[in-house]
């Protein structure tokens, strides 16, 4: 047996190879923040979302919340729904029910 001269290639796809999506700035404060709530459309996702929203409101005093339930869990939020969230929400919490 000799030392291997074989070079094997990396099959993974790193983040650097993906399209760059800029991250939004973090909220400076939660007090009064307008929150978007996105449920994935499966049973109970609204339950956990409403509890998260209630807890955040109790701790920080949120502004208006806007809720969106996706018609299909597998599809990203897009189009008019995305525009609506961008207009009305400063931050978004997504919940996955199952």
């Amino acid at each position, binding site marked *: 047996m000799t030392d291997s001269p*074989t070079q094997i290639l990396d*099959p993974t796809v790193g983040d650097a190879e993906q399209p760059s999506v800029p991250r939004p700035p973090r909220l400076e404060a939660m007090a009064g923040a307008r929150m978007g709530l996105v449920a994935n459309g499966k049973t109970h996702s609204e339950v956990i979302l409403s509890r998260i929203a209630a807890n955040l409101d109790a701790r920080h005093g949120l502004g208006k919340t806007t809720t969106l339930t996706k018609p299909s869990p597998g599809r990203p939020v897009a189009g008019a729904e995305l525009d609506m969230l961008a207009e009305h929400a400063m931050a978004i919490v997504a919940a996955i029910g199952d």
Partner: protein
Amino acid sequence: MLRFDKLRGVAHIDIADPWQAIEACYERGWTDGLPVVPPTAPLVEAMLGAGPWSGDEMLLDEPARGRRVSAYKAAVNAVMAGCLPSYFPVVGATLKAMSEPQYSLHAIAASTGGAGTLVIVNGPIRHRLGVHSGANLFGPGFRANATIGRAVRLVMLNGLDATPGVLDKSTQGWPGKYSACFAEDEETSPWEPLHVSRGYDAGQSTVTIFAAESGHNLLNHASSAPEQLLTTFTDSMAAFGSFSNGRSVVVIAPEHMLHLERAGWSREQVQEFLYENTWRSLADLRRGGKIEDGSQLADGDETARVHRGQGPDDYLVLVGGGTAGGHSMFFPSWSRSRGASFVTREIPT
């Protein structure tokens, strides 16, 4: 060079430590649990060269997380899966099909339902590559079947980060997630090939993909009457465990197909029969606790029939399997609803 080992009495080929390369892939989490072919540059170049795509062309596009996989990375994974270069056009066409929005790739990669991607191959390429459609077509023994589907899964693991228990939340999964690729037995089928029924020419080669849960055996050795045979099918297909309004793939065994052929049943008649007779009453579904809170069925009439799927076109039927035996197979869609469509795409040849 082929050498003969006098001590062990076997022929062997001297290669500099291939196990080190295989173990290196394990250590980096690049495998599906089985050993992989170490992807060296010459092997990857040969794989890529067998398809029409440049290395930087994107073959897989998953929009929910914005993940994309290039042809070059797909070729690396196809080498690891054990594909011959001639298989790469099938792998690439499958990845392109999975990128269609109606396939809901992110859900399929992540869902607790544990979907496997069925890859059904039609057209002349079946014979050129040896994609098997006969005895044990879902089982072991056939390189094209085993490695094309495996390449697709390795791309999901390595390209989409579909790590089991992390992104891939499959509650249990099923063995078809290793590989689930087979061909239609177009020669045994009395019907037009599946891809022709979906708008392609018989001379074209295609993949048709479907996000499936594990197959269910449809056993009937006793009857040659189409209605009885297909009632065996619908009885299994209406079972609570997989009941949904989703789609279905039914692979009809040649022995069952012969009975349907002798009676003159068309594909459309079979689809119609399956849809019309795969149903449960609303009362039944309530008894089984299959109505979720908030469902539009919640307030319906107890005697109402709730069908599997939304119509005959939700039943994709084709022929495959060995010539002996009354065993057909039903693959339900993985989701509790209508999570993903059938997608057919031409294989570049």
